[in-house]
């Protein structure tokens, strides 16, 4: 309260050096972590240095990373989606079951599944905005509903816990090329999901930093009431974010379906936390209004690396979760520190 604004230039906000700016980036901590983990496994596990290892790592990261983009955007917008993990399975199942039951072109199933996925997103968003109930509870409800429905409907229609193989149905080939193909570049086998992952991260980053919608996403997450007061359509932005998660769940579901031909109806449970963890490790604040899509991508890469690295190092894979836990805790602590510096002391 010491500075008088009119008499002399403001002295409360000091000019910031470039170095300081880089250090204060939300994703900086996760980048340091990622490099550290890479070097660590590179040194201790010889097989980790191979091209196959890199390929596998990127693939695992991309399957998590695509969803983490949506979950990070939603988290920046101040909300959670616990149904994101099972929604992927729901998307894959609804495409597969519809195509098989009606023996129609798989693309009919694919489009039906898109409608279902966007519908789930809309349902979550609408309920959160309409009732004011925290999204944690609303999506916990839809998580349970979808988890149950995935199993029950699959059993009802197929008599087993997985959907039938749809690889001989018309249109499967083209869909497989789009959602689940593989190509080789610089001697590394790259799944197409890696390309999509980078693409979605790039689009999300551009949107967040360079568009009106991006501005609004940060605003509704940072302070919904202030945003509403200056004319930001808070409900529309948030519902849109839930539907973005729905869209990406559809995309991930399509990859699973066209890669494995059939879908296990019980899978996907627990993944919602991995998406959230990736976003948080990447510097998104649980409370909203802060974070980046690039950070979430680095978070997903850390997951992919740890997941594969522990296997290549011949450790018990049970340590993956332990490792993730450590990463999450250290990320949250450093985020807290950054936030305290970014906001007022």
């Amino acid at each position, binding site marked *: *309260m010491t*500075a*008088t*604004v*009119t*008499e002399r*230039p*403001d002295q*409360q*906000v*000091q*000019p*910031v050096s470039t170095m300081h700016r880089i250090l204060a980036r939300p994703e900086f901590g996760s980048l340091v972590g990622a490099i550290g983990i890479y070097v660590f496994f590179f040194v201790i596990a010889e097989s980790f240095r191979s091209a196959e290892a890199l390929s596998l790592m990127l693939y695992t990261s991309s399957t998590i990373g695509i969803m983490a983009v949506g979950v990070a955007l939603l988290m920046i917008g101040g909300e959670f989606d616990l149904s994101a993990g099972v929604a992927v399975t729901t998307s894959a199942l609804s495409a597969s079951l519809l195509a098989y039951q009606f023996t129609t072109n798989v693309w009919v199933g694919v489009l039906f599944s898109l409608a279902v996925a966007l519908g789930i997103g809309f349902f979550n968003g609408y309920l959160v905005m309409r009732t004011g109930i925290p999204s944690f509870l609303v999506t916990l409800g839809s998580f349970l509903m979808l988890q149950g429905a995935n199993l029950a409907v699959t059993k009802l229609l197929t008599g087993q816990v997985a959907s039938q193989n749809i690889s001989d149905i018309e249109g499967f080939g083209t869909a497989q090329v789009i959602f689940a193909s593989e190509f080789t570049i610089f001697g590394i086998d790259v799944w197409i999901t890696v390309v999509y992952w980078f693409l979605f991260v790039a689009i999300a980053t551009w949107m967040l930093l*360079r*568009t*009106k919608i*991006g*501005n*609004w996403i*940060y*605003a509704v997450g*940072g*302070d919904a*009431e*202030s*945003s*509403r*007061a*200056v*004319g*930001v*359509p808070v409900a529309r932005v948030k519902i849109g974010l839930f539907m973005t998660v729905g869209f990406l769940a559809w995309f991930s579901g399509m990859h699973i379906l066209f890669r494995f031909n059939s879908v296990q109806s019980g899978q996907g449970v627990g993944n919602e936390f991995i998406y959230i963890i990736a976003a948080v490790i990447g510097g998104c604040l649980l409370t909203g*209004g*802060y974070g980046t899509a690039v950070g979430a991508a680095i978070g997903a890469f850390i997951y992919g690396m740890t997941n594969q690295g522990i296997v290549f190092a011949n450790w018990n894979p049970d340590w993956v979760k332990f490792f993730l836990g450590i990463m999450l805790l250290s990320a949250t602590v450093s985020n807290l520190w950054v*936030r305290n510096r*970014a*906001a*007022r002391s």
Partner: protein
Amino acid sequence: MTTDSSTSTTAIEQDTAGPLVQLEDVGKTYGNIVALRGISLKVGPSEVTCVLGDNGAGKSTLIKIISGRHPHDEGVLRVHGEEVKLSSPRDALDRGIATVYQDLAVVPLMPVWRNFFLGSEEEKWFKPVRALEVQEMRKKSKDELHKLGIDLPDIDAPIGKLSGGQRQCVAIARAVFFGARVLILDEPTAALGVKQSGVVLRYVAQAREHGLGVVFITHNPHHAYMVGDHFVLLNRGRMTLDQKYDDISLDELTREMAGGDELATLTHELKR
């Protein structure tokens, strides 16, 4: 206050005849609770109307009606002479009514310039792919704030780093820049120290010079008397005083504000 302020000033001069905002016998009830009843006030160009009242007097309900957050359900609200029922803050903004709230003026973690343009972003390119005019907006917000004497070395700093008075000024500057004709200020000095309050009050006077109508809500009669042209006192949802600057002294205003006789009794009780 840049080029478009010259056009808006002429526009104001053209219709100085009528009040910008006028309330006639306006009331609002929430269920069976009467929050406001029989409120009549008006704000003209270059006029500061102060609304005073204790906690629970109905000040915030009044703001909500004028700023479009809750529509009124009795009486008539006129904006630029036209009878309206405001449906949202956006609606009010489009009619030139901007509200600066004491507590929810800005998004603390966002950079100053993003806050400045929030809700009214400038864009380039064509639909559906439109991008923000980032450099343009950074420059404009920096220039605008510079004119107010808020000289920020870093326009990208989160606005939460500024002091309370500066944040209020940014919020007011933003409203003026976007062509507001009427400013509703919700207790802008309540949480501020003496010097910071001075900065805000000076800026209120400046807004009046520029031809804006100001509704200044406060519970501080000293602040009100410094800038006000017209004083309205609310008590338990009703108007208990409606006076022009020339017809009332600061002492009278303070006494009325404190509840007149009640204060006398209290002084007597606590006499040492």
